[in-house]
């Protein structure tokens, strides 16, 4: 089997060209990087570095020690001064607060004393005032009561006197008038009433008798007439029992017709 390489040649050329270009670019970058390191960094050797360190240490130690000493001293000084200052302040504050408290208590005591005194004074004044009012009131009450009682008693007495006077006067007047009236009228009245009563009772009696007689007469006549009529018509006399029997018969007949 034979291969035709001519057909794959462009592809091979492209691949080779690509690889070549890759190497070239890589070289270019490497060159540039190297150049940059050479230009910008200075790195001493290890021995030089050790020497430099020794030198720095020998030169700087006393300076550092001195600085440390100064800082310590300074800080101690500052601390001491602050402490003193703070102590002073605290002392001052304590004394001030003590003074204030003492003053407050003193003042309070004074106020308390003052209040107590005032209270005592008020109590005294009040009791005096109360006593005065009570005295005044009692006096007024006594005066008022006495006056009022006197006034009431006086009025009652006056009223009673007036009443008695009027009653007596009225009684006298009535008695006089009444006596006169009775004397004048009573006999007339008695006579008139007596006459009237007598007349009335007599008249009533007369009327009653007349009525009874008339009714008897009428009844007699009625019975006689009815008797005659009945005898003529039905052949018998109607007495009371027959009369009632006839009425009862009438109702018996009416039972069917009317009820």
């Amino acid at each position, binding site marked *: 089997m034979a291969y035709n390489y001519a057909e794959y040649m462009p592809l091979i050329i492209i691949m080779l060209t690509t690889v070549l270009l890759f190497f070239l670019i890589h070289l270019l970058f490497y060159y540039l990087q190297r150049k940059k390191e050479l230009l910008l960094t200075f790195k001493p050797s290890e021995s030089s570095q050790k020497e430099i360190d020794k030198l720095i240490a020998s030169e700087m130690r006393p300076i550092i020690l001195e600085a440390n000493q100064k800082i310590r001293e300074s800080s101690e000084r500052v601390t001491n001064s602050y402490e003193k200052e703070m102590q002073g302040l605290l002392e001052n504050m304590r004394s001030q607060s003590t003074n204030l408290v003492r003053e407050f208590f003193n003042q309070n005591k004074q106020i308390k004393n003052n209040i107590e005194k005032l209270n005592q004074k008020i109590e005294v004044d009040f009791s005096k005032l109360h006593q005065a009012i009570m005295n005044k009131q009692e006096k007024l009450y006594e005066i008022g009561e006495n006056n009022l009682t006197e006034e009431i008693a006086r009025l009652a007495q006056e009223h009673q006197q007036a009443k008695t006077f009027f009653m007596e006067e009225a009684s006298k007047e009535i008695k006089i008038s009444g006596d006169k009236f009775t004397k004048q009228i009573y006999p007339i009245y008695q006579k008139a009433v007596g006459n009237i009563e007598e007349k009335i009772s007599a008249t009533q009696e007369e009327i009653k008798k007349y009525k009874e007689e008339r009714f008897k007469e009428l009844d007699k006549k009625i019975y006689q007439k*009815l008797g005659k009529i009945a005898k003529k*018509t*039905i052949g018998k006399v109607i007495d*009371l029992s027959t009369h009632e029997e006839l009425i009862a018969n009438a109702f018996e007949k009416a039972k069917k*017709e009317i009820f």
Partner: protein
Amino acid sequence: MEKVLNKLIKEIITTEELNSILLEIDKIQREVFEKQNGSLSKIAKELENHQLENYLLELEKIYPKNPEEQFSSLEKLKKNLQIISQIRIQIAYPVSKAFLKNIVSWIEKETHKKLILDIILNPKIVGGAIIEYQGKYENFSLEKEIDKIIREKQI
């Protein structure tokens, strides 16, 4: 109270009695306010018609010294009495009260109603009775019989 009222109504037999009671009630109604100040027992003693006595005593028990209530109760009583049915009878001459009572009882028994008699005396009817009730008129008198006999004799 109803028992006393029923008894009172039962005792009334004629319209004459009814009218007398109604007049008496009017008089009592006036006196309740004017004289006795609601004391019905005092009024009851002075009554001419004693049929109302028990009713008044009972009324005083229910409304003692209360003229307003007594008055209105008497007014109700009047109304109750005024609605009692009446039957008119004409008779020749008076009959006994006992007989009338029997008649009323008999009517009540027959009609199952309370009725009172409106009696008119008419000697012309000679005997028997003419009865009128609820627009009906029946002549059961001897007058009718006599007329009949006379007419027959004339013929």
